[in-house]
């Protein structure tokens, strides 16, 4: 069977095109493409060679070990140097020419420590407007080993949301220690030594059971009849009892 002229001509055109594609491919595909996967392996090198701006706190400790060890023993042990002093690789490279800035005004510390209900309870927070206005934070608090000048009496220093909620509730006049026993150590290592919490219905019953001798204005219920299978705080939030 003879091959039709059309096929010959078309075959020639297609062969040339495919050959051209093969040549172009050989010339244009980057060298390291496919070495490690379907990508240009040399890209990893160029990304890895990006200069760093943050030196890392280990670099700071190499020269400033006194500050580093003071910080490691204090409440800011988890706060790296460059959180407050900014990226300082430039300072590491040229220590005498580039000096790290230090935030000495009131604007910086509230980024972490201003009261915000979304912050986890127990995190030390203040009201930046009311708390010693006009004075820079570092006047009273050493940023490398911050402690309050006086140990806060009020639990609200760290438990601001609870205190604010309780202050608007029926339990506003109850102090925290009415229901919670707080060891002194809790103010030093708060996550390790925790305050106690009431464990039984009888505790709430001291004010709320019928016939209790507590405050006259506290609502009374029959402790035996009123949902006896549940603990009181499963329904009534103690810091704001009117809600459920």
């Amino acid at each position: 069977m003879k091959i039709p002229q059309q096929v010959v001509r078309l075959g020639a055109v297609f062969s040339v095109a495919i050959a051209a594609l093969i040549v172009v491919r050989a010339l244009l595909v980057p060298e390291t493409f496919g070495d490690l996967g379907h990508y240009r392996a040399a890209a990893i090198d160029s990304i890895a060679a990006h200069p760093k701006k943050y030196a890392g706190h280990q670099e700071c400790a190499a020269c400033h070990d006194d500050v580093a060890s003071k910080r490691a023993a204090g409440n800011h042990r988890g706060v790296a140097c460059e959180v407050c002093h900014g990226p300082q690789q430039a300072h590491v490279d040229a220590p005498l020419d580039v000096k790290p800035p230090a935030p000495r005004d009131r604007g910086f510390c509230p980024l972490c420590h201003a009261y915000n209900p979304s912050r986890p309870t127990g995190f030390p927070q203040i009201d930046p407007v009311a708390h010693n206005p006009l004075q820079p934070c570092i006047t009273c608090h050493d940023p490398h080993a911050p402690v309050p000048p006086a140990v806060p009496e009020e639990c609200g220093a760290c438990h601001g949301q609870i205190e604010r909620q309780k202050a608007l509730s029926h339990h506003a006049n109850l102090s925290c220690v009415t229901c919670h026993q707080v060891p002194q150590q809790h103010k030093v290592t708060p996550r390790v030594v925790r305050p106690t919490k009431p464990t039984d219905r009888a505790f709430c019953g001291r004010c709320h059971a019928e016939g209790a001798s507590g405050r006259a204005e506290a609502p009374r219920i029959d402790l035996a009849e009123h949902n006896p299978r549940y603990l009181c705080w499963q329904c009534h939030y103690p810091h704001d009892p009117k809600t459920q």
Partner: protein
Amino acid sequence: MNPDDDRSGAPLPSGPQPAVDRRRFVENALKACAAGCPLILAAIRLPAAVAQGPAGQAGYDPTEHLYGMGIDIQRCIGCGRCVAACKAENDVPLDDHHFNTWVERYVIDDNGEVTVDSPNGGFDGFPQPDTESEIRRTFFVPKLCNHCANPPCVQVCPVGATFITPDGVVLVDDTYCIGCRYCIQACPYGARWFHPTKHVAAKCTLCYHRLVKGLVPACVEVCPTGARTFGEVEHRPTPLARFMRMNEVQVLKPHLNTRPKVYYANLDGEVR
């Protein structure tokens, strides 16, 4: 009109085709192959020796690492230092719609209504929540590229400009990306963005340039409460190992089977 009267110069057989055409075809084909063989061999590039890992990083072997990150929602205070540090370390544009990492705030009121916001990604921290009614739960959620083990973004890249390294980091090859933005569409987490001046896709690199030097990513370095934990996903002694053991961890959008390597402890069900 005479079919023989052709001035193109090409041989124009008239009448029935002679059998010599088949021979000529075969001859031409053989000639083409002979000419093409060197080209074909050049095209089949013999595999080069496998690269030793990022050159210039003495002693860094990517096969010894598989990175992941842990995030503890109960520790995040929404200060936004991570967002600021990432932008500084990686030259991310400072506007409010290009982020490698950002922090979201969830406020769930007593009626169960959920409000989510992320003002400038959390770069300047967060103002007071904008809610009048009582708050049932509220918390911050840092987000970033999850460096998925089954990344949909890598799957859709038409040219192989985005890839996952042997040590588990998803990266973008700036000089190869054609800017089609398919990967940005394919990411379920909104982690990718289009670089406004380089015109390529961009995303969190886990600060790969720091990892090869044995440092942690900038966001982990500056997190003041330890909400971000960095380490190895596989069985190696890193802080992530304890994180994975002691917490009930979740990942974002598990139903999509992207197998993220960013693990969240104490993650609320409302988080998307």
